């Protein structure tokens, strides 16, 4: 339930945001029309995708690519574009977003 102006008048005085980093609550994944799909077998863990992703949606643990955060990925395709070609094909490919 979104807040009324009377509540916001007190809680968000002067339209400020009191809790830092709350853009995390604003999920933008639904904007996507194409989704990047990661093939672990083809991945060289070069982390170009992590470097280029404008929405910090490449999940990396211990220096290794671990997956894609679809909560915020808008499907821009940059990761797939920069993913280097290997003998096994691209590790990230863009696919139709099917409901």
């Amino acid at each position, binding site marked *: 339930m*979104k*807040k009324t*102006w009377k509540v*916001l008048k007190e809680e*968000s*005085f*002067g339209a*400020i945001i*009191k809790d830092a980093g709350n853009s995390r609550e604003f999920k933008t994944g639904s904007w996507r029309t194409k989704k990047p799909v990661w093939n672990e077998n083809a991945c060289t863990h070069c982390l170009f995708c992590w470097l280029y992703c404008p929405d910090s949606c490449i999940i990396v643990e211990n220096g290794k690519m671990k997956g894609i955060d679809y909560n915020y990925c808008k499907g821009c395709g940059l990761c797939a574009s920069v993913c280097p070609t290997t003998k096994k094909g691209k590790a990230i490919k863009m696919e139709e977003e099917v409901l």
Partner: protein
Amino acid sequence: MRKVRMAFTGNEAVAYAMKQINPDVVAVYPITPQTEIMHSFSIYVADGEVDTNLVTVESEHSAMSACVGASAAGARVMTATASQGLALMHEILYIASALRLPIVMPVVNRALSAPINIHCDHSDMMGSRDSGWIQIFTENANEAYHSVILGVKLAEKVNLPVMIGLDGFIISHGMEVVETLPTEEIRNFLGERKPVYSLLDVDNPITVGPLDLQDYFFEHKRAQIEAMEEAREVIPKVHEEYNKKFETNLPDFVEPYKIEDAELGVIAMGSAAGTMKEVVDKLREKGKRVGLLRIRIFRPFPSGEILKYTKHLCALGIMDRAHSLSGLGGPLWTEVRSVFYGESCVPPDMNFIYGLGGRDFFMEDGEKIFDYLEKLVEGKEQSGSVKYIGLRE
């Protein structure tokens, strides 16, 4: 209380009030006829008479931006400007008010270009009448002095910025006796600013001025509208407190002058109201029942007070030292008319545009206005017409 009578121009009076207030931050850019305020104030800074951090910036847009930042950090902040400078600040004025920052700014009223002109009219402040600032129009240097001090108290009580207009050259450069208050008493009265939020509060980090789209903008704007309505209640209380503490007679929204039993009445703002008081006295001596209602606070608009003091009149003249170029007439007039819409039995009215670009307004001009109103009562002039006073026709 020990008051000292001092000879000041309006600008010097404002600078002296600022010195007594000792604001934390003043950001400023020079512009005629305001420059003298900051010239005088910067001397106080250089002489170490204030602790103010004086920020000299490269434009008025930057001056107001610096004020917004400093005020959001929790500082007591002031600046001053005029005309084109206020126009250049326009974008940031709305940000200051929506962020609820109590910035106080004397504005030395000067015509907006073109043609370029450095003299008085109210077109500058009329251009920012919908920016969410409280707007005060003063009649003389003494009132400007007190309004700056009161303005700080008021701004910080309602968390809205306050603009104090003084007519360019007429008030800003005319020398007058000003009844100054003791500095210690002023500082006790104002105390320290207690900000609702502060950018420098690192334990409670906040975001100021974030993007606010379809989801929340409307609610935040509605809250700001309410703040202006609440200011309407607080304004008389702050005036009462000020007048009691300093033994002054500063009127709040309006100053009625012999209008209660008048048949013909005029509404005016700024220094011309002083001239009109003399005109009223002169015509009263001749047995004419005339009066004046001076509007001191233009924002929030004193609808109730205007109705109360002018509804009984046989004819009402509204004097505008600005034209809105809207195809309607002067801005004060159109707003006064909107107050009357929906009321039964309202007086016939006329709009008088005068003094644009510093054109002198003499007592004869004031008498001419009452002549027009007499003719309006006799049916020889039409209600709702706009006349130009002091114009070569």
